[in-house]
């Protein structure tokens, strides 16, 4: 690490006047360490990997890559330090409460990491002869059985790569089912409170999207929904529990009404963690629901993926599920159903969504999580998640406006609005204030149906002591926002960075190192 960090202290900073006693030569502040880019400290001649053998120059003629590529290398010691220093600029669930509503940041058990790295799983090729990967098929099948049983559904498509990919899977099943019936229905009804992926998925699959209105208590307006139903409706996409943190009381009635006009019910299962082991979506008339293994079943979020989005399906949609899938054979063992066997085994499949079998590394982790909890533990997961969220809701609703606080208990997340804050103070200020208190903020400005929304999801893996301290911190910040404390407007003060210029980033995008 020889180069001075451009991001840290620079001579002109002090030259500009104003002796800031907190400025250090390096830009570091004790354990808060600045770190340059690899492009500033590495060299294209350096490598951190030793090879045993020399290599020939190659004989590729005009295709040989002769021009410099510009990829810097570091020694192993420098590499470990670079990424370790970067890691320390991240908040993470391992550091504390991470109450991002609808994202379900719960503890990630390390057993699951160990299991996923067993060589039989981590070092197996997706196209190995089937007789050499029966254990991998067994994992997929065992997890599939759990998902089907926990949801009370008919079957499950395991290959979708993340939640939004699972949505696409479910919606394509609906499209294929309609085609099989010879019907061209074009409209999907989606509540305004839905995740953005819902309308984006519907549009990606060629449907037009219409909003379903909500009642004043934050649930789908059943009467308005029924009034819109007709022969052009392909189906609905409902999130349950919904993004206001409420259970859709009328879910069964919604399903029945949609089915009565020949439509299908897609359920966004992002919030399944609130009801796992206590409610089976199959009992509510759902036809398709994706399950985010990285939410309900605690595979790590990894700073933005990988996810995994298996889709449970009703008997009506199961025939259209994508390829490939694992089938248990009567004579024992498992067989992969792919294009070649689909004609006899699964003739109505809508096709393949991804190259291989899905997120195997997430399947092993999710199965280890499920087996660790068992049927009794999963039920406790839902109950504790809901208990923690209601505890937060009722411990904060005297200082923060809870727009649906009178709508009954919340499920796994508590929703607040920015109502009552001092003039000029916003949800963003509360979020940034939480950073200074040592927390990751809650989800902000979502769902869109609530002004300045703050969606708080504690999850079941937090203790009462942690919640009590968080409640204290959030109450303190809420009071500062109500009283117009100007210091809150410039928070965070103690993070590796102050508020960043996102407008400038978008106006003149710098997306790659240009040095």
């Amino acid at each position, binding site marked *: 690490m020889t180069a001075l960090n451009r991001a840290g202290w620079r001579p002109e900073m002090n030259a500009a006047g104003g002796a800031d006693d907190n400025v250090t030569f390096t830009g570091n502040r004790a354990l808060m360490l600045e770190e340059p880019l690899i*492009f500033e400290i590495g060299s294209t001649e350096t490598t951190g990997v030793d090879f045993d053998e020399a290599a020939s120059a190659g004989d590729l003629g005009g*295709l040989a890559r002769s021009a410099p*590529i510009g990829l810097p290398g570091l020694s192993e010691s420098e590499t470990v330090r670079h990424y370790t220093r970067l890691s320390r600029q991240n908040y993470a*669930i391992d550091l504390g409460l991470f109450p991002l509503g609808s994202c379900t940041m719960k503890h990630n058990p390390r057993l699951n990491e160990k299991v996923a790295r067993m060589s039989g799983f981590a070092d197996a090729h997706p196209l190995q002869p089937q007789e050499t990967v029966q254990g991998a098929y*067994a994992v997929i099948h065992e997890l599939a059985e759990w998902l089907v049983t926990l949801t009370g559904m008919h079957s499950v498509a395991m290959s979708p790569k993340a939640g939004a990919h699972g949505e696409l899977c479910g919606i394509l099943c609906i499209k294929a089912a309609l085609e099989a019936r010879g019907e061209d229905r074009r409209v999907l009804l989606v509540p305004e409170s839905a995740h953005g992926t819902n309308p984006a998925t519907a549009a990606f699959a060629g449907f037009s999207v219409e909003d379903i209105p909500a009642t004043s208590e934050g649930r789908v307006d059943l009467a308005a929904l029924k009034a819109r139903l007709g022969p052009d409706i392909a189906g609905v996409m409902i999130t349950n529990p919904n993004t206001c943190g409420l259970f859709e009381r009328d879910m069964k009635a919604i399903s029945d009404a949609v089915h009565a006009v020949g439509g299908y019910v897609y359920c966004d299962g992002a919030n399944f963690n609130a009801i796992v082991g206590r*409610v089976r979506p199959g009992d509510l008339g759902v036809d398709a629901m994706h399950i985010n293994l990285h939410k309900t079943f605690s595979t790590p979020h990894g700073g933005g993926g990988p996810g995994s989005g298996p889709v449970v399906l009703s008997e009506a949609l199961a025939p259209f599920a994508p390829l490939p899938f694992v089938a248990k054979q009567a004579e024992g063992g498992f067989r992969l159903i792919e294009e070649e066997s689909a004609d006899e085994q699964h003739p109505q499949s809508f096709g393949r969504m991804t190259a291989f079998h899905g*997120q*195997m590394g997430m399947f092993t982790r999710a199965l280890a999580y499920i087996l660790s909890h068992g049927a009794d533990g999963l039920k406790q*997961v839902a109950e504790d998640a809901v208990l923690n969220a209601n505890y937060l809701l009722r411990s904060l609703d005297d200082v923060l406006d809870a727009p649906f606080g009178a709508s009954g208990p919340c499920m796994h997340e508590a929703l607040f609005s920015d109502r009552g804050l001092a003039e000029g103070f916003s949800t963003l200020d509360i979020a940034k204030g939480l950073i200074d208190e040592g927390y990751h903020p809650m989800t902000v400005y979502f769902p869109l149906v609530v002004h300045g929304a703050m969606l708080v999801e504690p999850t079941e893996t937090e203790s009462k002591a942690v919640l009590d301290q968080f409640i204290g911190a959030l109450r303190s910040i809420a009071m500062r926002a109500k009283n117009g404390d100007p210091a809150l407007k410039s928070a965070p003060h103690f993070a590796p960075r102050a508020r960043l210029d996102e407008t400038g980033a978008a106006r003149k995008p710098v*997306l790659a190192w240009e040095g």
Partner: protein
Amino acid sequence: MRYLPLTPDDRSAMLATIGAASIDDLFADVPAEARLDGPIAGLPPHASELAVERHMGALARRNRAAGDGPFFLGAGAYRHHVPASVDHLIQRGEFLTAYTPYQPEIAQGTLQMLFEFQSQVARLLGTDVANASMYDGSTACWEAIVMARRITKRAKALLSTGVHPHYRSVARTMAKYTGDVLVDGDPALEAGTDWAALAAAIDKDTSCVVVQYPDILGRIDDMTALAEACQAAGALLIAVVTEPVALGLIKAPGEMGADIVVGEGQSLGVGLQFGGPYVGLFACKAKYVRQMPGRLCGETVDANGKRGFVLTLSTREQHIRREKATSNICTNSGLCALAFSIHMTLLGEAGLRRLAAINHDRAKMAAAELAKVPGVSVMNDSFFNEFTLLLPAAARPVVHTLAEKDILGGVSLGRLFPGNDALANGLVVAVTETVTEDDIAAFAAALKEVLA
């Protein structure tokens, strides 16, 4: 339950604060007919760490791990040596257990890493910009086709027969529902690509031409002329790279004029993982950046003037644009992108070039040895670390017989192109730095025996 910290006393105290008599009160909105009273019947109860590890270990041992013996599979997933520090670093809790960096002040670690990843990918693929990753190569390929439609306002995509059949299959699935027209088919067992024919087939309705490099049969070719033909006709050239290590040795698609370059990044850092999670690479010319799918990280400054990074251009994305978004993708492959980036940093340009050259040398050695087996020939004139063998008999049963001898000897074209008898005798063989000379000798001897 070891992951649940609430005690019975905690639960009672919290219910009292809430004003609920029991936990069931909190589920009162669930209709009675959908309420479950006890644990779901027929499922086992919770288990200790020891018991779960034992169960999963038994399942893992039912698989033949690639490293347990000679191994020659590729066809879209490659086995490379991953330095130990990669897996150590991605298990840092601050990376592993962080979320998408929505709060940039406390996510600079992930954001700076993504900026470095984007920069590395753009340079490797020879383009101006790259995004923060997609699910995998196959889904990135489809997203590129859709992006070309948005840019050109045309909907006919010409797919080279050399594109991975599973990638073509994904595109065909999606095109059925989006109205895109795909022209595609299976490859011929020839040393040359179909790129000249593709150039001739471009017309005024063509949105894009999609080629794979190296292709599914291991062939490499110069795409300069094809890129010029695309440009002349107002179509885009999309190049798919499923083995990024190759680009340490052969020209990048962007250098040869490709407009969009997508790929599978699994080769670096990620490992085989039985097909996922992998990391989709997505890169393009700067002028198309606002039509890209997925997350983008950009450089900016904070309120004190310090450099920092944020997710940017999010007005393309579903959480802002909803049904008008460029894609529905939300979660990507952040942790796999980190693994890719660390491995690439360890290699550096010098290491990558050397690794690629070693792969190529080893593959040439294997091709020469295998071609000595009676009745066997190498189809390719040119290749990187993967080539197609032509056997005197159908390759698929041969693969199974080799597996009985504990040799995983490649991917048969019968598996990749089922039902296409013209390809049945083809066997795609990949040879990376993990393959030893002894492995090659064992493979050649076994193949000779099986074919005798």
